[in-house]
């Protein structure tokens, strides 16, 4: 999802008899759905895994602004432009909520940003795909944020208090993102044949990258077990993916667009849609840095950070000078 392939520091779940008293108390709290708060005792691996997951989630929100920023000056109407700006602004806020949650674990925002810029942390694979036409912007809101919502709604129940509270806030705003995206796509799907073709092209290109967002299938997801036991992760990759597909197929049908995967079919027995797996080789390749936009995205992030350094430093110098003058005056 916005956090993919998060490595837990150990594989498999620590058996109860190997736990210290502190670890047992900690696990009992989690099992009773009592939230873990910043100053509570927690195992080092729990803290480290959370920092990785929340950090990657935060990076995804921030890098996620780039594919959309591409269209701010090209939006078809002033209203669409204002809506898109509001959405991009929300993503910056989401990044902030998440960095703040990570900071309660003792990792500073600047440090997380440094790790991202050095290529030692990742963001979601989805943002390494380009937004080629205006319908892609509708598609990003509806499909990408739609997929994010499925994950984030589940994460509202995550065991770490600050992370869970950030999710509650984010979910409220994501709902605006998904709806404005679907609204934009509807206009095109019900518009001229050219517009409809653009909408179809966006759905075709975004579908598989969107369902890849949930990460590899459960069978291959080796790091999930301990994260599930700690309720850092609440639902499995496949469960979330299925939920997203089940809710999205009728939305595509309503638009009168062709399904992007010919094997999508309702299965009466399972009560779910059957679907074809995305090309996981492509997924791992994008994660490794070989997606269509990986280099661009990171370069733009680093450039923005470096170009903004004089502003950050200048404001800090001003604040220190003002504080010193105030002390002198007293």
């Amino acid at each position, binding site marked *: 999802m916005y956090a993919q392939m998060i490595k837990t520091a150990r594989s498999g779940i620590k058996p109860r008899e190997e736990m210290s008293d502190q670890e047992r108390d900690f696990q009992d709290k989690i099992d009773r759905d009592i939230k873990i708060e910043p100053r509570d005792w927690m195992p080092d691996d729990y803290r480290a895994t959370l920092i990785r997951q929340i950090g990657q989630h935060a990076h995804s929100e921030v890098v996620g602004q780039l594919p959309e920023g591409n269209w701010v000056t090209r939006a078809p109407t002033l209203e669409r432009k204002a809506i898109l700006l509001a959405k991009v602004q929300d993503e910056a806020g989401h990044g902030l909520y998440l960095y703040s949650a990570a900071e309660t674990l003792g990792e500073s925002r600047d440090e997380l940003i440094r790790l991202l810029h050095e290529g030692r942390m990742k963001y979601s694979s989805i943002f390494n795909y380009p937004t080629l036409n205006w319908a892609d912007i509708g598609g990003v809101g509806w499909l990408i944020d739609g997929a994010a919502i499925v994950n984030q709604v589940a994460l509202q129940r995550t065991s770490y208090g600050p992370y869970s509270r950030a999710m509650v806030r984010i979910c409220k705003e994501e709902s605006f993102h998904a709806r404005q995206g679907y609204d934009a796509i509807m206009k095109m799907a019900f518009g001229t044949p050219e517009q409809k073709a653009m909408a179809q092209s966006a759905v075709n290109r975004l579908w598989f990258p969107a369902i890849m967002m949930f990460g590899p299938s459960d069978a291959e997801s080796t790091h999930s077990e301990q994260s599930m036991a700690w309720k850092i992760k609440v639902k499995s990759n496949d469960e979330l993916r299925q939920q997203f597909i089940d809710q999205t197929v009728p939305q595509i049908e309503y638009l009168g667009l062709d399904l992007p995967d010919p094997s999508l079919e309702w299965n009466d027995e399972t009560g779910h849609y059957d679907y074809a797996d995305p090309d996981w080789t492509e997924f791992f390749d994008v994660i490794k840095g070989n997606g269509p936009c990986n280099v661009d995205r990171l370069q733009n992030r680093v450039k923005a950070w470096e170009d903004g350094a004089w502003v950050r430093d200048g404001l*800090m110098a001003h604040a220190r000078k003002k504080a010193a003058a105030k002390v002198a005056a007293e």
Partner: protein
Amino acid sequence: MKNEWPLWEIFIRGQHGLSHRHVGSLHAPDAELAIKNARDVYTRRNEGVSIWAVEAVHVAASSPSDKGPYYEPSESKVYRHPTFFDIPDEVGSM
């Protein structure tokens, strides 16, 4: 010198005359910008009519290990609640 902007805790008073409530944190070089940033991040959808910003290092917090001694004693003091007392129906509402 380390130039990371300090962390501020943000409190917002909602529309309906309630107390300021903690909504989250942000980074800012000083109080003035903390309030401006809070306005941009935390009041974009009519969430509030007033902002407090407190630098996070100035927040004093109780320790999790105080939980027992601090909060358990009140569990046995049920007489502090109005429902502890039975008032006869004839007396009317009280």
